[in-house]
Structures are given as C-alpha cells and as structure tokens.
C-alpha cells in the first residue's frame, strides 16, 4: 500500500493523542487505535516502514508504531 498514505494516517491519529501530556500514554493510545482499526497488512507495512527509519512519522506516531506487533488482536 502507499506508505505515504499510511504515514499520513498514523500521523493524523497521533495528532489527536498529542494533546495528552504523558507521551507514553499518547503513544499507547495511537498503538491501541491502530491495532483495533487497521487491517494486518497495513500494520505490517507501517511496522516495516518504522523499522526502516520511519521517514515522515511524527514522534508520537513513531513511538506508537514501535509498540505495535504483528501478533493478532488480543481478546478484549
């Protein structure tokens, strides 16, 4: 998928959570959102992009993607 589009989506999500003063909480918010709403192939691609340097990702988005795993959704 167009990685630029995925980066933009991750950054948009991060922009919402950026109002959270605790950056760890903000990153976890982004991670949780992506895990709940992104198809696995999208998660795989953003993880691979982050592992390659994560060009274009904001700080919060980058922190969040670092928390993502390729493992399936956990039961909620």
């Amino acid at each position, binding site marked *: *998928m*167009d990685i630029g*589009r995925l980066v933009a*989506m991750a950054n*948009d*999500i991060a*922009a*919402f959570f*950026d*109002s*959270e003063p605790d950056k760890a909480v903000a990153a976890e918010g982004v991670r949780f*959102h992506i895990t*709940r*709403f*992104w*198809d*696995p*192939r*999208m998660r795989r691609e953003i993880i691979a992009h982050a592992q390659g340097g994560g060009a274009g990702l904001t700080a919060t988005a980058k922190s969040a993607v670092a928390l993502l795993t390729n493992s*399936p*959704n*956990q*039961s*909620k």
Partner: protein
Amino acid sequence: MYAKEYHDLGTPAANGEPVTLEIDGTTVTVPAGTSIMRAAALAGADVPKLCATDTLKAFGSCRVCLVEIEGRKGFPASCTTEVAAGMKVRTANDAVTRLRRSVLELYVSEHPMGTCADSSRCELETLAAAHGIAESRFAGANTPRHLHTAMPVDASNPYFRFDNDACIVCSRCVRACEDTQGTYALTIEGRGIDSRVSASQQQPFLESECVSCGACVEACPTGALMEKSIITAGLPQQAVTTTCAYCGVGCSLVAEITDGAVSRMVPNRNGRANQGHACVKGRFAYGYATHADRVTRPMIRKRITDEWREVSWDEAFGYAASEFKRIQATHGKDSIGGITSSRCTNEETFLVQKLVRAAFGTNNVDTCARVCHSPTGYGLKHTLGESAGTQEFVSVQHADVIVVIGASPTEAHPVFASQMKRRLRAGARLIVIDPRAIALVKSPHVEADYHLRLQPGTNVAVINALAHVVVTEGLTKDQYIADRCEQDSYEKWKKFVADPVNSPEAMETVSGVPAALIRGAARLYARGPNSAIYYGLGVTEHSQGTTMVMGIANLAMATGNLGREGVGVSPLRGQNNVQGSCDMGSFPHEFSGYRHVSDDATRAQFESMWKVQLGAEPGLRIPNMFEAALDGSFRGLYIQGEDFAQSDPNTAHVTAALSAMECIVIQDIFHNETARFAHVFLPGSSFLEKDGTFTNAERRISRVRKIIEPLAGLADWEVTAGLSSALGYPMTYAHPSQIMDEIAALTPTFRGVSYEKLDQLGSIQWPCNERAPSGTPTMHVDSFVRGKGKFYVTAYVPTNERTSGRYPLLLTTGRVLTQYNVGAQTRRTANLAWHSEDRLELHPHDAEARGIEHGDWVGVTSRAGDTVLRVEITDRVAPGVVYTTFHFPESGANLITTENSDWATNCPEYKVTAVQVVKVAQPAAWQLRRQAKQSASVD
C-alpha cells in the same frame, strides 16, 4: 384526500385529565381539551365537517359541524367547542340537520354537485348527497364561483394540480402549509366570493415558494388539490404501510395501490417519526422504482472493456463465485471483500456482512456509512457508550434551545425540519453553526438567535470555544457530572478547555466567528434549561470529524443535556438506513451491535450460529480497499447498492483502484457509475419490492413491506443468499423475518425485536430487549450506556487542506431538497423540475473579483482535479467559501474533493477543499461527451 380507510377524528388529540360526557345518549370519557367533534368521532358518531381535520388546529369556519348542547344557547361548532364534564350533546336532530343542510346548500351554490369528476373523492359532494341536496336554492347570477373568478387549472407542479373551480376556500391547505409544513407558501387572497387560494403572490405552484410536500393536497376536502397520479390511475383499492427509502428521518408511509401499481404515497398519520407528514421525495418521487432504466437481467463480462452479456441468475452467481474463489486461491482469502448498502434493509446488510465474514472468510466488509457518519459511531461510542443518537424526533417539542450544527434540515431532513420549525415557532431559541446561511437562519416565523458562520474546517475550534465559556463562566452542571461522568476525565477536559488558547477571543482568528457571538451562544445553550444538539455531515466529514462529535458530547455532558426529553445529541443521518447498516455489523472491525471482532465471546456466538470459524482481525475500510487494490493485494469486491465512482472523494483515485480489480460484482437497481468497472451485474430491488426493516436516525426500526414483485425476480436478500450458496455457504431463509430472528439472537440491543412485535407496536427504537421490551425512545436516562460518561480532550488540529494563492477559496458540499445523494433515484423522477443540475454557489464579492456573472460556466480546480459547473451568485455563502451539491454525475463534484480523511475513521473530508474558480466558456470536454451520450440515449 385522506389515506384510504383513514378515520379522521376532526381535531388533534388532547392530553388533559379524563372528562366524562354524554354524546347522543352514549357516555364518553376523553381527555380535557378534546373537542366535541373528536369525542363524538371516538364514540362512533362522526359529525359532518369541511374545514376540520385532525392534523390541524380547529378553525371553526365552515359551520357544518354544528351540534346542540343541553342547557346552552344556539348551536356551537363542535370543532372549536371543548368537552366538559356532564355535558350532553346531540350531534343530529331536526334543528341541527336543518341548519347543516342550509350551510351545505350555501357551499353547493359555489361548488355545484358534479364539479368534482368523481364525487366520492369530494367531502362536500358526499356530505351534500347524504343530506339529500342535488342543487342549491342559493345559486345566483354570481355563482358558482368559477363564473366569478375564472381561473385556469394550475397544473404546473409535476405531481398535483390545483383546480380553483372545485375549491371551497376552507383554508385547510393554507393551514397545512403553515402548521404541518411550516413554509407559509399559501394564503387566501381576496374577500368574499373573490377569495381564493394563492401560492406565493398568485404564482403557479411550481414557481412559488411551495416545497411540494403535498400536505395541502392531502388536506384538501374536495378535488381542488389532487394528485395527478390519482387522476390518471383512479381511486386506490389497497393500502400497505411501509417506510420511505430516502433520508434518515424514515417516514412511515402508506402506499396506495390501484390495479397492482402504486398510485399514491401518503404519510402514515400514526407514524412516530414523521407524525403524519412527508416531503416531496417520499410522497411523490417513487417513480424511479419502475423507471425504464431499471436493470432487470443479470449480466456478466470477462473484462470491463467487453460488452455485457445477459445471463441467468444461476450463471451470474456461478461466475461471480468462481472468480472470487480464483482470486482467493491465488492471492489469499483477504484479497476480496464486500460493501453493504445504507439504502438496503437491515436484513440485507446483515446478510452481506455475513457472506463476507462467513463465506469469503475475511472481515473486509465496510459500508457507505464510512463516508458519512462513521465519526458519529466512534465519537458517541467512546464518550457515551453507544454509537447512536440519544433522542426520538418528538423530543424536539420539549427543547428550549435548539442547536443545528453542519446540517440543513429543511433540505436534507425536511420532515423533521417541519417538526423543528413548529417548536421554534412556539418559542424555542435557535443557534446555527454553519459556514452557509441555511434556510433556518431566517425563514417565515423562524430566525436564529445566533448564526456562528465559521470557516469550513474549524468546527473543533468553535466547540472548544463554546466549552471554554461554559467552564470559565461557571455554567457547568457539576452535580450531574459528579453523578454520571468519569471525574478524572472531566477534570482533564475542564483544564484543557479553560486554557486561554481555547477562548472565543483566541479562536476568533481561526474560525472567523466573533467572540461575542460564541459567548452569547454558549450561555444560551448552557442555560437551556433543555438544550438539544442536532448535527449532520458538516460535523462528520472533516479531518477532525470524530473529534467534533466528541466535542459535542463533552459539551452536552458538561451542561447536563443528556438523558431526558428535550435535550440530547442527535445525528441527522443521511440515508434511510445508515443507522441500520452500522448496527448490523457492516464495519470491518465489529459485529452487529458494535462488538469488536477480537472479542472471543462475541465471535464464539457467531461461529456457533454460522458454523464457521471467523477472523479476529479487523478488515479493510473502503479507502484502504482502494489503496490495497492499487498495490495488488485486493482484487475482488461485492458491492450492494453503492456507487463509489460518483460518491467517493477524488474520483480519479477511486476509478484507478476500481480499474485495478479483477472481479467487481455490482448489485444495484440502475447501471451506476461504478458499474462501468464491474464484471458482474446483479439486478437489485427497490424498497417497493421486498420485505425487511429500516432503522432511522432515532434508532427506530420500521417495517418495509413488499408491494410489488421484484422486477428482476429476486429481492436483494435472495440475491445475496444465491451468491453465498454458489460460494458453497448456503443461506436458507424463507423470509426476511427469519433473518431478523437471527439478528435478534446474535445482537443484545435487538434481542426483543421481531416482525410480530413490529406489527404490534408499529415501530421499535432499539435497544429492545429484556430491560426495554417496547424499545428505548430516550437513551442514557439514569446513566450512560458505558457506565460513566467520558470526556475527551479535543484539541483543534487544522486540516492539511489549506487555501493558497493558487487555491484561494474553500469548497464545501451539501444537498438540495428535491434531489437525494448521488441522484440515482431522484434524477429519474419529475423532481428534475426543481433541480436539474448541480450549481456552484459563489459570493458576489468573489464573483465580481473574477468577472463572473450569475449563470456563467466556471472551472473549479483543486489539488485533486477539476470540473466545470454553472454558477449561482448568492450571499448564502460567505466571501472565500463556495458550495455545491453532488447529485449529478456530469457535475463531477468529487473530481475535486481530496483524500483527506477523519483521523479515527477515514471518513472523507468532503466539507473542505481548497479550490480556484475561473470563468470558462463551456463544460469540460468529458462533460460535453457525457451530455451528448445521454441525449442520444434519450432520443
């Protein structure tokens, strides 16, 4: 003329304490405030009448309804005389009958017997005949009226005509226009025998302010105002109650049938959503269902450049199934998906998502709600606990302050707008938050106290500024918050909005709204005491759509405006079944009832019922599907009742994605824009051709009933079942009621819903289960569904779509009253008489600066593309803002909208596109080619 078999009780219901009286020797008990006319009708002793009808306040002009009351002088009109305890009424005796006969003769002197072609349609002639009147003693040189007034029949409206000769000037039409519709287009002009009904200033109906809602036609007691369809087809022989297939108001309608075809559609007087009213679309624009353009044979083709080949249903199902299997065998099970339709029934959308999850084996299912109200689902679920509006429509009658944000109810939800206007005329205050001066800002007897005319894209700045005033001026309901909300989230939010950066003064530079107006509006809203927010796509279709929905919920919680009648947060849903399609598990991350696919317990229930293993990972959303199609990982799509190529943003991007797929299966009633990229076409069925249910914007589930057989032989639910069976996953339902039983078994909020109960109650607002067996009109009454309401910090983040020297104007989009969505239905009706093309609204200052005059063709260019529209110069839009609708494919409105989307849901940002507008000589080449092609096909 009333609906067939409707018993008109003459005056509206009252709700006082019980009063007992005697009518014609029968003891009757009715609420105080009830008219004698209504009490008598309830007792089975209908009093003759002409100017009275139970949808309108008593008028007391015709004097036909005279009665005798023991102990009282004279013969009072029963419509304007209220019941009293111990009263003894005679509705008929010699004296009353003699008087009534004389009055009727006076009417007949102006409207001779036989004036109406079919006297059985005429209340006057029917009454006169019943009183033995064949001609009038009072007829003279100046009567009948038509000799005096000499007016031609006005047949300008495509759906009804006005024959002044048959008019008895009873004012029912004028009062219906005022009280029921609230448009005030009709009046009685002249005096005495010169009196006559006038649309606007003696204009033909079509050219007047009339909005063609038809309330006047239904109210008319003679043949003066009459549907042309009834004149052509004759009187109805049958009547079937069903639900409108247009907007999210979900009007209950009675389809009247003559010789097997619908001859008239009238609002159900007992319909809870519409309260006996309808609009130009629901009442009149149903002709698309039998339009010649309907596709009635399945078709297939190998490549999208090939000609279509008509085939049998079995061959079409077989071909589609084999293609989907082939793609999955090569590219994996997640390489295909499906789209449910907000125009189809709950049962049909449930089946499509079931097919995708169970037969395809993937969660790649989404719905057109993605591009309209998906932020509503997310925002309200997270703050309040349920992805739906909080009220029923009649709640607005208890509101003291009404806030309309990013919606134009008179255009897009006209029947609810009439209810809203009635409350506003009764004294409720109004705040409008919209870049455009929508009709509610100033119209007859309605004027907004505040119009916050914000820049497109700054909703969140304004909602935060409103909240800032509420918090810093001590207008919060602290006990309500302490009892019902998460205190820590509240404290966090309170600190956030109290920050001076969110003050009206600071946000004025962002939104363009004067701080004083925001302060005034915030105080008005907070002090209510009952304040209700209604919002539309002007809230959701933004990069911060979800943030804005959360901001609205925050404000309502902080001021205690949730959990009772007259308050609430109510999304005005665009299409008839947007709420239902979301409820039914159409989103890729959740099952019906908004439960995430990763929830093991929920998934186990579905797996047990469906006998198949289901995925725990969310699937692709619509925009993600397009991206995946372009990278080759998504290659097949089953689309029920949706037209991406016209309705979705950045058309060039969408069509590139559609072109990249190997198998697209379209199920639709017309050959739409997206069908140009399809390989299989499965003919759909209109709402007249199937059984099922729709769920409207107030969570009201209403029955859709089959009136005619499906033109293509199968209802939509049968088509999905056929495709599923061909894929090796048989669906064996005998009737949609069995699908609803399955929905009820699998969905906690629908557990008590069944067709039997719907027939008993008329309609049901979910949740309907053990705790609420008759449904739930108002949500969050004692506590929020999520337990404690949660405040979210909603920082304003400017959209990436900015104006520049090259694109200096902001385009926003919307609807007009007479057209609907992409126009597939309404473009195939006589509604074209009002709106036959999309136009670009441009402010006079912007027009002058560009040398553009009213009616010119203008090129509209954005970063995504360009198109040409005809211009309308108006100050409805502010300088720097332009506006258009997207009802006509030849307008190409979505060629210029961008892929920007809401952060949480990917709902497109239709409402903010930076553009440049320049004068051009003619439409673009592709538009001319399209017009030529259409002209050729019409010829």
